[in-house]
């Protein structure tokens, strides 16, 4: 009796996820039963979009609630996880819209694209609010397993199948290694609950901590693979290049912020007291963050395909976000949430514009952007704004996001990391400006007209461009909204 009422009570806090799951199952059934001709399936699209909107609405209802642990401490609903989920839902909705319009996804697969990204969204939500090792593992696997077919969605394309294959192999290996690490953490500490792990770590002696260290490094492999930070980033450019563009845009946002949220939570819960484990974890994270930024930016310099350049750029951005996890205080998490929002808008806009040109020409090489400003001023201006913002130029949101993160780490005394972050920002300016130079100063190769964007995409690009500018100038409101009122860390 008590079990049943506990579950019913828990579900009242779990409404957004339930809506997303029901929507996913609904699309699955409608996909089978509804009309065969994809272009006539208007209702199916409306159903999918409504699923996203209701999820978003339910999440907004949960924003101001105090921290709540449900399902016997398996899941935690707090402001941090809810804000991460909100960003993820918005990103998924816009990616779905890109997917509907893109030629990169075959017409008869559009509804399957909806099912799969809805599933990945559920995985991200699970990962963002995971409060024990089992939910964390299930979240990561739900994310990964649904991402493999997404990468291989362009079925008859050789590159896409290969991208799916590489993703599946790397993903399986890293999940396995992470699981092995978790099994030893469980063996040494005797529990999988995050709260209890944090308590028991504090009572270990030095030898036991030495044994625990490699387990935590194994554990980090799985999370590091999900956010594609440096030793585990090799899959990212290949997979991003092979996947269809809307999928690439999706990959560079939703799974990454899910994994990032998990890293932030793990760091915040396990490693707040000063001991050997904390020094190692924070040291490893800071080295990885510095390497991630540097390798991402340096590799992006010589790329020919814009998609691949954006893949490396997203690796570099993740390095920046990783710095926020080192702060171990509310101000760091606030900066991370703000960065997530800015990163989402900038990346979606960049990929959206690339998708248009790629649909037109069949590839996304840099010279396809030649003289874009003479051919489609709206797209060109939006692209320039997002490139400047990604490089971290004021007055755009990218600058404020980077500024918040760097200010937070300087407060904690990581001066070297701050210098590395700023230098990397300078390096990144080179390849972002290369695209801007092509757009503005080169003459178009051909007089071939770009096909009509359609009112929806024009409005979307304009809104996102304006959002980057406006939130860059009037950022206080958004930054206050991202404030994490309650510490993620537990009060014992």
């Amino acid at each position: 009796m008590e079990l049943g009422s506990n579950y019913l009570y828990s579900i009242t806090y779990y409404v957004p996820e339930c809506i997303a799951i029901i929507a996913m199952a609904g699309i699955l059934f409608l996909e089978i039963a509804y009309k065969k001709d994809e272009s006539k399936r208007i209702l199916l699209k409306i159903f999918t979009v409504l699923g996203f909107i209701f999820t978003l609405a339910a999440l907004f209802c949960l924003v101001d609630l105090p921290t709540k642990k449900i399902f016997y401490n398996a899941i935690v609903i707090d402001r941090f996880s809810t804000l991460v989920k909100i960003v993820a839902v918005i990103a998924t909705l816009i990616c779905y819209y890109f997917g509907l319009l893109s030629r990169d996804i075959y017409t008869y697969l559009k509804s399957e694209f909806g099912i799969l990204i809805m599933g990945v969204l559920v995985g991200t939500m699970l990962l963002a609010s995971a409060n024990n090792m089992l939910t964390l593992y299930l979240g990561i696997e739900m994310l990964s397993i649904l991402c493999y077919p997404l990468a291989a969605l362009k079925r008859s394309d050789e590159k896409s199948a290969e991208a799916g294959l590489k993703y599946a192999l790397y993903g399986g290996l890293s999940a396995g290694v992470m699981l092995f690490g978790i099994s030893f953490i469980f063996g040494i500490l005797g529990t999988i609950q995050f709260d209890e792990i944090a308590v028991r770590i504090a009572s270990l002696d030095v030898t036991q901590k030495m044994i625990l260290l490699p387990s935590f490094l194994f554990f980090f492999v799985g999370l590091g693979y999900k956010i594609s930070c440096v030793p585990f980033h090799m899959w990212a450019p290949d997979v991003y290049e092979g996947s269809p563009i809307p999928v690439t845009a999706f990959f560079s946002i939703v799974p990454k912020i899910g994994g990032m949220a998990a890293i932030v939570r793990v760091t915040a819960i396990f490693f707040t007291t000063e001991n050997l484990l904390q020094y190692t974890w924070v040291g490893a994270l800071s080295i990885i963050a510095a390497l991630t930024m540097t390798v991402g930016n340096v590799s992006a310099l010589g790329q020919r395909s814009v998609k691949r350049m954006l893949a490396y750029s997203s690796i570099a951005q993740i390095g920046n976000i990783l710095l926020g996890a080192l702060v171990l205080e509310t101000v760091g998490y606030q900066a991370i949430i703000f960065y997530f929002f800015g990163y989402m808008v900038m990346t979606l806009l960049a990929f959206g514009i690339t998708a248009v040109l790629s649909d037109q020409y069949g590839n996304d090489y840099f010279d396809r952007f030649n003289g874009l400003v003479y051919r489609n001023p709206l797209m060109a201006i939006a692209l320039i704004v997002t490139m400047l913002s990604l490089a971290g130029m004021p007055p755009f949101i990218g600058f404020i996001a980077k500024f918040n993160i760097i200010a937070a780490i300087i407060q904690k005394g990581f001066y070297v990391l701050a210098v590395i972050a700023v230098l990397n920002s300078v390096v990144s300016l080179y390849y972002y400006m290369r695209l801007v130079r092509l757009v503005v100063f080169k003459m178009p190769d051909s007089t071939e007209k770009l096909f009509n964007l359609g009112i929806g995409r024009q409005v979307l690009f304009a809104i996102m461009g304006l959002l980057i500018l406006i939130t860059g100038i009037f950022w206080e409101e958004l930054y206050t909204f991202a404030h994490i009122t309650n510490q993620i860390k537990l009060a014992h």
Partner: protein
Amino acid sequence: MGIAPYIIVSSILFVCGIVVMIARKNIIGILLGIELILNAAALNFVSFTKFSNSNLDGQVFALFIILVAAAEAAVGLAIVIRFFQIRESIHIDSATQLQS
């Protein structure tokens, strides 16, 4: 018999899995390597539960691992079949389209 033999067996399984993933050129072989790694972790969980603590977390975890491994193998094999239909080979060295 204590916990040590279980840990040794699971560690051997884990190392075998890693070696298989690195050394085998056949994609099906690589997928088998992933299964070995997952099973090593599952064995660890059940043996830790048996010897060192009384709650059922580890055994529940092992059940979930089996479930997820099945799902992962299904998706992985589907992608391998697709790859085979396109390239007519399941040799990992024929996956060379995406390199910079």
